[in-house]
């Protein structure tokens, strides 16, 4: 494999990785607050479709992204209501949300299938930085969403570990009864972070339909939402580790695409399996490390909280 090919795979890896990094970051927030959101796939599809529709109708990228955020957050609101307020099973609700999101977007998006997004995100080389050999090409010849994610990861890490709202977030997910007794509202925080998670999933979806693919096909996320959930496990609810995992995934994805394009002799179906196999391996390793005990993991994950229900 020559250097140029490797660089092009890396460039693609970051783009592909970003599409799951964003939802994974959102899922970190939701799970840190104690809400397991398995509806990410559906929320990504909502973002992808509605971002795309807004783009087709207005040609305004900023507006398209805003619409994608709203669409993702709206579906997250349903999950939040069902699981936080009505205290239904989070796993089943997440599944229902993913199914509904898939069905709903396929239903609504039928007339939009097949055309190309009129206004697309474009790669903007960062002046100065893009000139750095290799690194500049890989990291700084990207699109604004990728740059945004470069900022978002450290910001989120700082938020979670170094600020008071971050402290509250961790407390709500680990020991909601404590947070409640300390005068913090568990319910409103869980709503907030579940919505934020949905919003980020929406952006991740729109990133696919406005840049990565850029078109609308139903089911176009092809399991990326689920992979994002897996990455959160791999990343032990840490933004930096999730970022590393996302780019690793992107690399595997970019590799299989290039290998197909170059005609590697391996049937494309096997190459297509790589990202999914990769996710299984990665989740297995993260669980096998037994790092999960006592590392500030959200131990109340998946459990509804209700003050007057005595345990």
């Amino acid at each position, binding site marked *: 494999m020559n250097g140029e090919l490797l660089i092009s795979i890396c460039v693609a890896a970051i783009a592909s990785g970003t599409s799951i990094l964003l939802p994974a970051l959102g899922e970190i927030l939701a799970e840190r607050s104690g809400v397991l959101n398995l509806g990410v796939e559906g929320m990504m599809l909502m973002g992808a479709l509605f971002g795309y529709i807004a783009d087709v109708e207005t040609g305004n990228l900023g507006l398209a992204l805003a619409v994608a955020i709203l669409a993702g957050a709206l579906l997250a609101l349903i999950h939040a209501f069902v699981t936080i307020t009505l205290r239904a099973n989070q796993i089943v609700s997440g599944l229902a949300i993913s199914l509904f999101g898939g069905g*709903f977007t396929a239903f609504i998006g039928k007339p939009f299938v097949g055309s190309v997004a009129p206004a697309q995100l474009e790669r903007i080389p960062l002046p100065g930085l893009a000139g750095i050999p290799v690194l500049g090409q890989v990291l700084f010849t990207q699109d604004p969403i990728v740059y945004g994610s470069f900022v978002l990861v450290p910001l989120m890490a700082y938020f979670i570990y170094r600020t008071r709202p971050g402290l509250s977030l961790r407390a709500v997910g680990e020991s909601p009864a404590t947070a409640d007794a300390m005068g913090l509202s568990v319910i409103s925080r869980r709503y907030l972070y579940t919505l934020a998670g949905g919003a980020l999933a929406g952006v991740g979806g729109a990133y696919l339909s406005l840049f990565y693919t850029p078109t609308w096909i139903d089911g176009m996320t092809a399991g990326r939402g689920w992979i994002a959930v897996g990455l959160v496990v791999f990343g032990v609810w840490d933004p930096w580790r999730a970022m590393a995992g996302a780019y690793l995934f992107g690399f595997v994805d970019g590799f299989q695409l290039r290998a197909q394009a170059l005609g590697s002799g391996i049937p494309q179906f096997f190459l297509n399996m790589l990202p999914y196999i990769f996710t299984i391996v990665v989740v297995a390793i993260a669980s096998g490390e037994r790092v999960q005990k006592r590392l500030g993991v959200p131990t109340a994950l998946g459990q509804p909280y209700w003050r007057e229900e005595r345990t």
Partner: protein
Amino acid sequence: MIVSLERRANLTLTRRIGIQAGSVIAGALFGGLIVWLSGYDPVKAYGEIIGGSFGSGYALGQMLAASIPLATIALGTAVAFRVRVWNIGGEGQFYMGAFGATGIELVGGPAGWPSQVLIPAMVAAGFAAGAAWAALPGALRAYLGVNEIITTLMMNYIAILWVNYLVYGPWKDPQGHNFPFSPRFPDNATLRPLGLGQLHAGIVIPIVAAIVFLLLLSRTQWGYELRILGENPSAAAYAGISIRRNVMLAMLVSGGMAGIAGMVQVSGIVHVLSGQISTNYGYTAIIVAWLGQLHPMAILVVSMLFGALVNGGFAVSQAGIPQALGVLLQGVILLFALGAGDLFSRYRLVLGQAPGKKRAPLLPDDRSALSAQP
């Protein structure tokens, strides 16, 4: 004035059924709203769905045929869910079951094995392939504590790609005009049609399975272990019930049932192996299992309703309404059943300030009775 929730002590069966039915109807109404807002005619849409599943003998047969794979997968899923093993890999296990059955068919079909031998062999192969596909995530969960939700899901994508590889490559029908299908199953490898739409003899499988599960759960030691483990893993450990063994078994049974469903589908309906033998049956079955509250008989009933929705998807698409309406409605109904249904089954809404009548403590040692909440 406040609204508060009170935990219900117990619930009668009729009330439970009533609540579930109510939430299904509410979900359907909400789905109709979406249809209407999207510019389609909801009355026409539901007319097509109902007509397409109940309007004629043929329609009824189609509905029942669609409910066979749903019920079969859902029964297995229910076993896993009962012990809190979240196997959502039914879709992949379904494909693998179809793959296993086709593998046997490719040998025994053209060779002219009698169907009394070939069909059971295909069922066994379907079960084995589905169970094997579930065994990996099962083992990862049981021995390494790896979250099975993610792994079973990823395995779905891999299974579908695997079947596609086969039907685009080694198993492609040479006389198939380059379509990605396996050769058509000969008569000795197909389940006998019952003369009502596509309904076929495979319908006995979910019915027999439901009865077996019912007996298994209520009358056997294993059923007892599943019950204790599902309710409280710590108590199960205390009673010396092996959690690992039961997680594995539940995974194998649920994977195997999905595998059988895959076999039934290729042998009873499609008669070829292809990458499109399922319309989300694996996912829909999860809804069926949950709406049926993991009860075998209820699952049979709910699977007919969802058979109608799957079938309705085909029906509405002929009337110019996107087929995805079927999946949309499934999601909506599950959300309503989850939100409203589960809520009203577990709690009762209390309006206004505290109830006027004062109740004496039920039992002298009331605090400990309260601490019983799971």
